[in-house]
């Protein structure tokens, strides 16, 4: 009887997990000749016989019932309520150039005029080896994502040993996967995908991010999400050894001092797991282990966008005042004694 109950629970758990592999009627997403009723519809044709482009499908208002994640909303979303883990492009599309990645495929988004180079550009490193001065314009979503909507995932950890990567994060849309592996030991992002993209969120209901392959690692083969960010922003990742000159990432939270107090996962300032830890996980965990779990780029940033400059997850200017505790300041989640 006990075995039957466990078996049934597994079936229920599996069926509740949202998979990236799409299902449903083909015509929901595809059109064979981009022709209907004898004439062409507007905007297309689109690659892969799609009825719309990336942002066309991923624009909307998240309400907990949508089965497609919306990363751009045409009316201002309520940050932290109906925005998802990666954030929302709304603010960068409405006048705040520094509030999101400037993906110009999104209506209203233009190149950030403040930059002549990608932040963190290091000559000769990663993409800059071929892409010159490092002022690449993000014209398309596929600069960061290589979508495989029909790909099969083995779950719960996505992307560690399979073609489909965590949130489709891989640079091999334009280059073969062996290229990124050989150039800077990156094998596509791994992680556990929250089934509603963190529309609902708590200490045990969230994504799980992959950190460094090993402690102090910068050169090992990696599925780290921070190392992925470093493809463009290497200066904020790889040039930061010894005494900190820049905020660390893919470095373990110290198991001493104020950092040792961060022991319960706080989605405001998430941590990443050591890759060897992540691969053994079956679900999100509320436990944070200082000395092992790591600070990540995503501990502080939302890559699509937020209402705040530098794509920060919280209002750094107004909420983070040393000596003044504030639960809305993500800095104090790790720097537990700085808030007073």
């Amino acid at each position, binding site marked *: 009887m006990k075995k039957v109950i466990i078996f049934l629970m597994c079936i229920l758990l599996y069926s509740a997990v949202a998979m990236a592999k799409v299902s449903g*009627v083909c015509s929901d997403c595809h059109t064979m*000749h981009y022709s209907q009723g*004898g004439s062409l519809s507007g905007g297309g044709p689109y690659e892969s016989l799609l009825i719309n482009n990336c942002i066309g499908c991923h624009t909307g208002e998240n309400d907990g019932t949508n089965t497609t994640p919306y990363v751009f909303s045409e009316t201002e979303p309520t940050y932290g309520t109906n925005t998802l883990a990666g954030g929302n492009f709304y603010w960068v599309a409405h006048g705040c150039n520094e509030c999101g990645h400037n993906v110009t495929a999104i209506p209203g988004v233009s190149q950030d005029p403040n930059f002549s180079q990608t932040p963190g550009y290091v000559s000769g490193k990663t993409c800059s080896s071929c892409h010159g001065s490092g002022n690449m314009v993000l014209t398309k979503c596929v600069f960061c994502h290589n979508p495989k909507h029909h790909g099969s995932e083995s779950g719960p950890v996505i992307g560690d040993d399979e073609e489909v990567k965590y949130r489709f994060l891989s640079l091999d849309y334009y280059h073969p996967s062996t290229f990124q592996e050989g150039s800077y030991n990156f094998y596509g992002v791994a992680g556990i995908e929250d089934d509603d993209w963190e529309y609902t969120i708590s200490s045990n209901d969230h994504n799980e991010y992959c950190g460094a392959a090993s402690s102090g690692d910068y050169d090992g083969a990696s599925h780290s999400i921070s190392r992925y960010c470093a493809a463009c922003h290497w200066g904020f990742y790889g040039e930061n050894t010894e005494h900190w000159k820049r905020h660390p990432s893919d470095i373990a939270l110290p198991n001493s001092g104020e950092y040792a107090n961060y022991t319960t996962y706080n989605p405001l300032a998430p941590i990443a797991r050591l890759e060897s830890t992540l691969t053994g996980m079956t679900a999100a965990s509320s436990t944070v282990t200082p000395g092992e779990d790591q600070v990540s780029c995503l501990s502080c940033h939302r890559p699509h966008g937020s209402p705040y400059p530098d794509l920060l997850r919280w209002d750094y200017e107004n909420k983070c005042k040393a000596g003044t505790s504030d639960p809305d300041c993500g800095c104090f989640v790790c720097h537990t004694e700085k808030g007073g």
Partner: protein
Amino acid sequence: MKKVVMLIVGMCMLLYGVVAMAKVSGRCDNCHTMHNSQGGSPMAYDETGNPLSEAQGALLITTCLGCHSSTGTEVTKTVAGSTVPVVYSQGGPNYTTDGKHAGMGEVLAGGNFYWAATVGDAKGHNVSGIGSTTFTEPPGYSQATSYGRPATWDMSKFTCAGMYGCHGDPSKEGSFAGIYGAHHADDSCLKLATYDDSEAGTTVGKSYRFLLGIKGIEDDDWELTVSPSDHNVYLGEDRNSDAISSTATISYLCAECHGDFHSGTGNLGMDDDNFGHPWLRHPTDYDMGNTDAGSEYRSYGHPDSAVGTYSPIAPVGWASLSANMTIDTVTFSDDTIVLCVSCHRAHGTPNDDILRWDYNAMQAGTDDPRNNIGGCFICHTTK
């Protein structure tokens, strides 16, 4: 000895009689009337049997539909001892629309005009007199002059054959002029056992299904009986660009009116700057053997059959045809060419866009979709 010779001759005659030939036989007055007058009454009639006082082209006693339609549900009929393919069954033929049947053995290979005539214009080609449409030209009709078609289309003239039709000679206006003489041609060059590539396509009568210039091997009962080893064999082309190239493929015939879907320039066609994935539109005259060795397309096969089994549900084309060639299996080398007819039946089906199967039944994310659903998944085997 004399008896043996006569026996052999008799057996040959029986064997010959089994293979359906386009070349008609029998009494001339089965099809022709000299003056359309007999006892003061016309001899010609339409597809419903009503008399036609106007004399018909080629001295025929009826129209295309008069011979090639039925008042019931049958998809073949006997006219004076000859079996005639029926493409419009006015009583409504059966058609199982799921992706594992798609009308196989229920309608002929080209489908049936019944649904275009009775349900709506999305169910078939809207030949004048059969169905109607709000279209003013065929979808994808551009560069028509590149295909020998008129620069502008006249839907009121859309006929079975000729300049504004599919069959026959497109340089001739009207069905009778377009098809003239074809029914009397020796088309043995289009049969599997006697296929002759040098003759095929040279005249209307020697062209696949009277589609001038098009080569192919004609199934002897128009796929009334059909299986992986008993079917039409289509000519395709293994292209590396979507420019117009071979003019002998079945997809080229479609392109004469739907050119953009086959050879459109720029983003009017299948691709933009690069031929291949990601496509803008569904490719045709493209060999799936060009896909990666481990791709899903290398698992093409008839449902509930081994991978590599030809599927008459989603037929593919060969880059070259020959007498007695193997037609029941494919090798993914110039024999898995995607065609327009891989997905469509030209005359009509119960499905929108004259698809061979119900597109709305194609559910992505199903386990083993090739064998469980068929249809699109006969090629897209892991979607």
